[in-house]
């Protein structure tokens, strides 16, 4: 397996080298030391292991609109905006993720084995975000499409101003955001969660015992009753 040393090459060279690799390559990136922008903008189906903690935007802008892309594993924790705007492929973090994980991600799967901090899945646009542990406040804010699965507890203001994304929480929820509501779990939901548990390996989640949070759609239109405050 090829190894790229971030400390020696620098992030820009590492990203260039990753972009040059043919499909089905396997590569390990070492000495990441919390650096930003590692493995961004890659579209080929390659396997990348980041051998340490990384900084902001790890694996961002990756994959193609058909949902394919690199499979990235981070052997550590990550900074802000993990897999931002991901289009396809997968990003798995062995540790925890800081704020805004999977923000605006349109496709692909983002898996966090630890916790995710505030605003996880903010403005999600179709990707799947699965967090084994807890998510911080304001997670799922204005998420438009896609699925968020939380194996632990969710912080305050979950799913504020949600559009059509769906959030499943196995643990407790501190509070729901504006226009978010708890809905009954359908058999389709249970099936979807079962599939996610298989993919992620988060078998501490019982698909029958999660809370479904989705949009109440009260913010979709202006209401004539509120005329005075517009």
């Amino acid at each position, binding site marked *: 397996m090829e190894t790229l040393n971030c400390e020696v090459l620098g992030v820009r060279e590492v990203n260039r080298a990753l972009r040059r690799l043919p499909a089905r390559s396997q590569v390990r990136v070492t000495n990441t*030391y919390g650096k*930003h922008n590692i493995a961004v903008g890659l579209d080929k189906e390659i396997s990348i292991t980041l051998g340490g*903690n990384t*900084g*902001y935007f790890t694996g961002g802008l990756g994959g193609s609109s058909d949902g394919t892309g690199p499979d990235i594993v981070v052997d550590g*924790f990550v*900074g802000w905006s993990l897999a931002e705007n991901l289009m396809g492929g997968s990003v798995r973090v062995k540790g925890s993720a800081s704020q805004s994980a999977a923000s605006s991600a349109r496709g692909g799967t983002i898996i966090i084995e630890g916790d995710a*901090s505030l605003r996880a899945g903010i403005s999600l646009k179709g990707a799947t975000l699965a967090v084994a542990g807890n998510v911080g*406040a304001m997670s799922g804010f204005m998420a438009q499409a896609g699925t968020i699965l939380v194996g632990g507890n969710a912080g305050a203001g979950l799913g504020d101003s949600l559009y059509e994304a769906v959030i499943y929480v196995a643990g407790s929820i501190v509070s729901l955001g504006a226009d978010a509501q708890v809905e009954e779990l359908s058999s389709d939901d249970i099936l979807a969660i079962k599939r996610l548990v298989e993919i992620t390996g988060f078998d501490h989640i019982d698909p029958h015992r999660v809370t479904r949070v989705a949009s109440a759609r009260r913010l979709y239109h202006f209401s004539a009753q509120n005329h005075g405050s517009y």
Partner: protein
Amino acid sequence: MCGIVGLLIRDPGLEPQIGSLLAQMLASLGERGPDSAGAAIYSSGDPLSELAGSRAYLDRVRISLASEAPFDWEILRKPFAHIGSGDIGMRTFPTGAWLSVPSCELGAVMEFLSTKAEYFSVIGVGEGLSIIKGIGRPEAINGRFSVDSWRGDMAIGHTRMATESAVTVRHCHPFVPAPDLCIVHNGSFSNHATVRRRLIAEGIDFDSDNDSEVAARLISRQLALGDDLEAATRWVTKEMDGFFTMIITSPEGMSVVRDPFACKPAVVAETCQYVAVASEYRAIAGLPGIEDATVFEPEPEEVYTWKR
């Protein structure tokens, strides 16, 4: 955007290295704050002396000076010889100086320094505190002030990307609103003018129109009223509106607080050798034993304190 760092040493064996650790932390946050930087070190003796904790520092106070342009500090030696006992120690850098004066003569020295305000400013006073501030990237400032060689048991630093006020030495952090009290801030306050007016009405003086100085003066007021470091730090969440991650250091120890939305980043690393706080993990990635440190992000609106 700005970068902030704090480092509290628990293992005295690490004290001779604090300068090189601080320098590396500041340099790694150069992208967050390329226009200017500042730092402060707490030490029992001269931070640049092999004899840290030397008895010569008993009953003495340190005054830190900074100038916008290089200044010939040597010309101060003559007037200093005529103030009180004339026993004023001085360590100089191109745009800064550290004075050591007998505690009982602090007033006289400060009075003399106030007559030279057109050439330099007093950026802080303390029994165990030395401060630097400068314009430029942190690497350059580290070199100018030999930060690598500092010794001490607690340090704080800031790399600045100015958004609310001018890029001058006077506007640099850390702010030192009271002896041995340092504050660095990443973020911006939206109600600083209102709080500043109120504090001025109470008789509190300001050195600059910097928004962060308002929070610094607020904390200082609370400490003067008898609050401990934790309670005084909590006042920022009560009075100040805006984005902030702040690190505060005092003889008591170090504290950290973030705004309710955690708009500005922060990461803490704790080991039995030290406690480090920084804007980003990459600033602490090079600290000794970081692999085994407890690393976490401070929760919004929570105050964290570590005793010195």
